[in-house]
């Protein structure tokens, strides 16, 4: 029998439907793979009983012919999504033993459609990080290595567990979240496909909040088609989330393979950063060529406020985070470190419960919202945000259908390599991705081959609001042209 963990989600779905194997077999194969991949530290909690029980039910429904669109498909869940009765920590000590009594809307839709949960995936603490090194459970190791080196690389972050697990065959797809690039950068670092949908496309209800106006859930998968399949189940209006948008969910898979002839692809000149590595630059050009070969037209466009995006993002996101994380106070749930009075209880609990990066962002956020600084920082950042959104609106109004950029300025870097760098250098990982969150647009990271060090490199497609379909169509062209890449399974 073929290695069931090396199938794509679409192949597995078709195999299950054709009864070539059972969900139980498929699920067990993944549980075994997870067992063997402890070195990657991708999962922070494996739920084998739940997985096998889910697989059994799925098999019954498959046999009865009333299977859902994801029937029997084993997936991993980023530990930011609340899962009913299953520990949910956001990979923070402050929620180390928190077990919710509720299920996030996004994951409940996966289970509604028949998916099977394998467990909870590692991430940067409260999704704050670009390397998965801020996780209370320790860093995730990228399945990819540089040629001729056994140095451990990061799988990116914050959805590093999700990207590593998908790349390593530890699940057929994973949920992830993206506030400034947390789906797209890890996907680019691991040769996987990651979609950050339009803001409001997926419900935020039951997902631990980082920055509410930027957070958006999305899938990480091995192929563009898989991404389309998973997104369809994750997306949809939710009356419990006031920012979710009431709009039909299209059949995203139908867009995969759709012709892109005549599409106008914008190439933003401001993304050609000074000092951008020649390798990334060349990759970008290759992407343009592939799309042109498929009948699309490439046009240079301008997004003039791009250079302010990162600074504005690192005001808006921490500001919201500083307020969103105030609820972790040791009073009702989660970690409590006692003190002589309530102020000391807060201080002790939060000092022990939050890691350095989370504390840094809470402090930044508190500062920029403070009396006397609010106008200079927060209000100005919001104005920048409006300008960034207008930049995109202008480009789309000029007839451009999607925008092509690199996903990251570099390939995956080594764990600990950035330890002595300033936080700003780490934040630069998000330089190509944050604008998309600031504007609330959909963005797709798609693998575009390997670089000189043998590491995967990714391109990013940015779309019009709620036009995920065009991204999937164009992404499929890139994927077909670049060819799929898989990590060598050195950990086995």
């Amino acid at each position, binding site marked *: 029998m073929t290695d069931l963990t090396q199938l794509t989600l679409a192949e597995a779905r078709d195999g299950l439907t054709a009864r070539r194997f059972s969900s139980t077999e498929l699920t067990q194969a993944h549980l075994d793979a997870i067992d063997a991949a402890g070195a990657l530290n991708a999962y922070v909690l494996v739920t084998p009983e739940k997985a096998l029980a889910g697989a059994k039910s799925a098999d019954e429904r498959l046999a009865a012919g009333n299977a859902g669109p994801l029937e029997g498909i084993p997936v991993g869940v980023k530990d930011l999504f609340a899962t009913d009765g299953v520990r949910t920590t956001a990979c923070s000590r402050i929620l180390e033993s928190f077990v*919710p009594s509720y299920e996030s809307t996004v994951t409940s839709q996966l289970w509604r459609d028949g998916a099977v949960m394998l467990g909870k995936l590692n991430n940067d603490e409260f999704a704050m990080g670009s390397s998965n090194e801020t996780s209370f459970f320790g860093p995730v190791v990228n399945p990819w290595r540089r040629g001729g080196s056994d140095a451990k690389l990061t799988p990116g972050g914050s959805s590093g567990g999700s990207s590593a697990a998908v790349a390593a065959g530890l699940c057929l797809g994973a949920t992830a979240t993206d506030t400034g690039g947390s789906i797209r950068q890890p996907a680019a670092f691991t040769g996987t496909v990651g979609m950050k949908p339009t803001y409001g496309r997926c419900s935020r209800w039951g997902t631990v909040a980082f920055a*509410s106006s930027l957070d958006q859930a999305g899938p990480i998968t091995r192929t563009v088609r898989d991404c389309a399949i998973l997104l369809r189940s994750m997306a949809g209006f939710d009356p*419990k989330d006031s920012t979710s948008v009431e709009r039909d969910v299209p059949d995203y898979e139908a867009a995969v393979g759709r012709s892109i002839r005549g599409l106008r692809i914008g190439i933003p000149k401001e993304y050609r950063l000074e000092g951008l590595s020649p390798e990334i630059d060349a990759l970008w050009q290759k992407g343009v060529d592939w799309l042109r070969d498929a009948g699309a037209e490439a046009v240079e466009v301008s997004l003039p406020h791009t250079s302010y995006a990162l600074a504005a993002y690192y005001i808006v996101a921490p500001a919201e985070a500083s307020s969103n994380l105030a609820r972790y106070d040791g*009073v*009702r749930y989660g970690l409590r470190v006692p003190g002589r009075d309530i*102020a000391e209880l807060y201080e002790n609990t939060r000092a022990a419960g939050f890691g350095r990066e989370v504390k840094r962002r809470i402090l930044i956020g508190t500062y920029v*919202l403070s009396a006397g600084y609010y106008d200079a920082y927060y209000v100005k950042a919001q104005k920048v945000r409006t300008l960034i959104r207008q930049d995109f609106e202008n480009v789309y109004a000029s007839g451009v259908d999607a925008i092509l950029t690199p996903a990251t300025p570099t390939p995956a870097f080594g764990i600990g390599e950035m330890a002595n760098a300033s936080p700003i250098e780490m934040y630069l990982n998000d330089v190509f991705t944050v604008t998309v969150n600031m504007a609330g647009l959909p963005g797709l990271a798609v693998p575009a081959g390997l670089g000189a060090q043998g590491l995967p490199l990714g391109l990013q497609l940015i779309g019009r609001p709620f036009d995920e379909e065009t991204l999937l169509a164009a992404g499929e062209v890139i994927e077909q042209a670049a060819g799929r890449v898989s990590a060598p399974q050195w950990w086995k």
Partner: protein
Amino acid sequence: MNAPVATHNLIKGATGDWEIVIGMEIHAQVLSQSKLFSGASTEFGGAPNDHVSLVDAAFPGMLPVINAECVAQAVRTGLGLKAKINLRSVFDRKNYFYPDLPQGYQISQYKDPIVGEGEVIVDVPDGRQIVVGIERLHLEQDAGKSIHDLSPGASLVDLNRSGVALMEIVSRPDMRSSEEAKAYVTKLRTILRYLGTCDGDMDKGSLRADVNVSVRRPGEALGTRCEIKNVNSIRFIGQAIEYEARRQIGVLEDGGTIDQETRLFDANKGETRSMRSKEEAHDYRYFPDPDLLPLTFEQAFVNGLATGLPELPDAKKARFVSDYGLSAYDAGVLVAERETADFFEEVAKARDGKAAANWVINELFGRLNKEGLTVATSPVSAHQLGAVIDLIGEKVISGKIAKDLFEIVWTEGGDPRAIVEERGLKQVTDTGAIEAAVDAIIAGNPDKVEQVKLKPTLLGWFVGQVMKSTGGKANPQALNDILKDKLGIE
């Protein structure tokens, strides 16, 4: 800022006159089934933490969803305050840490409230009418309650109130005495209760006031104010203002200055004391709540609510004056509660309005107050009281008998007309019977007959004697006529 000084409100200090300036922030709990942003019940008096949803307790990933009924209630209230309704308003987060504030922030409205400027017309007990400006009304979440005296080693938290909708109604500093301030709160409470947007029950905390007090020399600019937090009865509001004004005058007359600060009113001692200074004030780090879109609605929504509003106290009072010929004072008393006004109108239906008002205000209210009852629990119904008034009007009973009859109906119930029949309370209009009684009295008191001719006021003595002998049932007018005739006085 230099409004003309009204001299009647000035208070004397040791060094001259002072004027008190008062503004108020009223927190009124919105009448609604569920909380402002969650489906949990707002019912009062549940066991601790009985009415708490995951949203109210701020569990990870929980999100607020606005309760449309609370929005409608705020708009109705705005209309009742003749205020500008803002079709777009914004919810902000007010950030601070406290155990009874689970989110670590209160969702409130800061820069863009749902209701803008309005006004309240207030009748002051001394007979003047003042207009108190409303600066704004905004919606916000209530906090939970910390309980410090139930467990020796710990404070406990009850989140039943956490997330309940409040309307914060901010007045302009338009009040100049504790009487005006008390009258303002009373009137505001009346309006809220008419609208059905707040039950106004101060005992249950449904209405609380933060009172801003400052003093100044007449005609001078505003003084530094102190805010007295969470005063929960109208009487205490008056006491707190009186105390605080005297305190500030004392400080200023001793050459001191007033520190802008937040103070607490101690109802037991009847004094205010410092809670925190301006320097200790929180930096609330307000910013728009990213979990909520701006609150927008159409003018048509406002118009629909306006159509459904009940007649409000000012309009009702004017109508009582014009339709029933009542004095402004009586009309004001009757409209203070919607139930009372309704009761009056039921009594006054097809009857003399003034008589109805007299009976409702003097007899019924007097009795109700004495027994600690309200019109809702009154033993005498509007129908019964109306029947009593009818019997007077028809001259079946005298006013004096009517009071006895009212007493019987109050204690025993029953149909007044039937009671009059059964107990023979009908007044005697048979002049023959009255004449006989008069003759008997005249015959028995020749000395008085002589005296009355010199001193006509003695006629009252004869009236009394005849009434006594007829059991009070003699028609007073007929009796008077007969007596005057027989005694030969004009």
